[in-house]
């Protein structure tokens, strides 16, 4: 069962990373315009040929 010594912290660390990521997206306002974000990827006028 010694494997737990690093597996459990790893699992927790991964979970915490996910949580931190979510809190960051929330803080940077990424949920404020969900419909707009879906549409903003469509126009491709930023591509210069």
């Amino acid at each position, binding site marked *: *069962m010694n494997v*737990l010594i690093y597996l*459990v912290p790893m*699992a*927790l660390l991964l*979970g*915490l990373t*996910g*949580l931190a990521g*979510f*809190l960051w997206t*929330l803080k940077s306002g990424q*949920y*404020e*315009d*969900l*419909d*707009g974000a879906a*549409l*903003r990827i*469509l*126009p491709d*006028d930023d591509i210069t040929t």
Partner: protein
Amino acid sequence: MAETLDLSSFVERGDAGTAHITLAVDGVGCAGCIRKIENGLTKLPGIIDARLNFTQRRLAVDWRDNEIDAATIIKALAGIGYQAHPFAPERAEADESKQAKALLKCLAVAGFAAMNVMLLSISVWSGNVSDMTQETRDLFHWLSALIALPAAAYAGQPFFVSAWRALRTRQLNMDVPITVGVVLALGLSVDETATHAAHAYFDSAIMLLFFLLCGRYLDLAMRRKTRVFAGNLASMQAEFAHRLDAKGELIRLPVAALRPGDRVLVRPGEVIPADGAILSGSSEIDDSLVTGETIPRAVGAGATVYAGGINGAGALTVAVAAAGAGTLVDEVERLLQKAIEAKSRTVRLADRAARLYAPVVHATAALTAIGWLVAGASFHDAIVAAIAVLIITCPCALALAIPAVQVVAAGQLFRSGVILNCGDAVERLAVVDTVVFDKTGTLTLPDPAVDAAAIDTELLQRAARLALSSRHPLATALARRARERVPYPRAVEEPGQGVRALIDGEEARLGSAIFCGLADGDTPPTPRDREASCIVFKHGGRTVVIPIRQSLRPDAVAVTQALKARGLNLIVLSGDRPEAVGPVAARLGMREWLAGLMPAEKIAVIELLQAQGRRILMVGDGLNDAPALAAAHASLSPITAAHLTQAHADALFLGEHLAPVLRAVVVARQARSLMRQNLVLTVIYNTLAVPFAVAGLVTPLIAAVAMSGSSILVTLNALRARLAMPRQPIIASTLSAAAKAQQSVGEPVSQKIGPLARASAELVP
């Protein structure tokens, strides 16, 4: 006269000469619009940033103050085809947005903790039936505690705070049993872990919080969505006033920015922006939105005017009054305060359930402990059994039963053009047995319409086209009939009399009877036309009297019949004259009606009816209806209602049809029956599960399965509402028909109605 637009009340100044404004933009519908608006604006000199929030249809613009101003930005937007309206966020909206963020954070923490604790719990459950050593199990339990305790302390805040608030006022709400359940489950688990026992309930406690937070968040998200929509509509409806400054120059500014003592110019046909006294000018004022009275009253210098009245043919200069004692608005405010206090005593269904539920559950737990002690069990075992009862009955499903249905019902109503103002409106709408209607603007359309039945079409078209050149309210109503939207060239308006122009080489006149050469007695006020105002048109030797009257909403008869068929009593309470109210009530087959009522009398009638045990739904739009709306058990307002009135209605409805009233009642009744079903389901679940808990047979695994099972069950039952409430085709077609009617006119009827009709068209998926 020069006219400048002053939007400074909407602009936020930043440091270093920057400024910011939020605009509600009308007509945004696709990905292209985002680019068009943002690129169009950022090309302008001085613009720092423009960002469109597509979900909310709002545009945030930042600019350098010395290079460009807000009025230019709005003009530039109009130039690329979008009507933008300055938008002042409401306090409630800002609060809810902050609340939503806090809830999302709690939800994220609870979600993270639930996943990780479950990871450990499932290992323990499988270990318990195989070869897990006691040391490993204890380690896993301690790890669970390490995750669950701080997470619960953080994510449980919304419940703990609300429970504490309720207890302090010596009341019970749903959050009290939730808090008790969570705290006891966590406490027991820590104790069990410390004593190396096999069972801990960390996962149950944290999962419970996670499910409940999901419910709360969805409820709030739905409310925010409707509030954003309503906020945009309000800013599109917001009216502008013309203020005269010291030099006599005209400044166009939002009504909200007017201060007492300001002098405002009210042109013919405009809405009076604020209460005040007339300084100069004379005119007739249509106070139908204020008092329900449809006959215009003549006013001159010194007369008092109320916000919302529509000016007739003369220009007025009005001194804005401070809200003083004795004005109508003051009286309305005073009545409102009283009515709101009375209403806060109604108890929500969920809290009523909690009041019954909590004592029963807590008594069962206590009896369980006593029973085990009497039966000779140890003190520890008796307490564990009692806490297991609390955990298994912790009202996860009960707390989700009602919000889940509310979310679905609010969505259904939103799609049929009913915007809920407050969360528990659905419950209250469902139990009404009497509907009280206001007449003017509610049963009838807010704007008067031409009764064209007996008039030659060609003649009417000519009159309507001539009416385009006049600003008189009656002419505006007539002009709406014009198919050709180009005014006749060289039409001359004679203030207070009418318009004339040359049509096909002959003079045509539109206006008062005298203006058109009719003697006073010649206008035929037949008994049928007593409630109509008349306008006369003369051309080529033919003279025609065009009656213009408040017309019923197109589906008023059908809707009132359908409401009656559903067992509701219908009553009309109007501030208008009996001669105007009687025929309307008769046409709709309503036997009970009262006319000429003051705001206080409307309230008195409603209180009398409520004292008889009736539950009243008040539907009204006038300023005089606001106290009655607040006093009634539930209330609805058309979106064209006075601002104060809208603020006190439980819900607003869009469009020119009355169908949303019926729809609101139908959906609310179905929602209530689903709520009751959900409550029954949870009671059944509890009666099945409690015996196991009392017997001490509930393991953490059973608790987890039972809890998620019941939560999913009530959520699915709530979603059934979408199937159980098929969209009545009449409603969808109502809205698109309203939108089509707008299109067929060619141009939006007026600035006020145009955005509303488009907004209602947007609602139809």
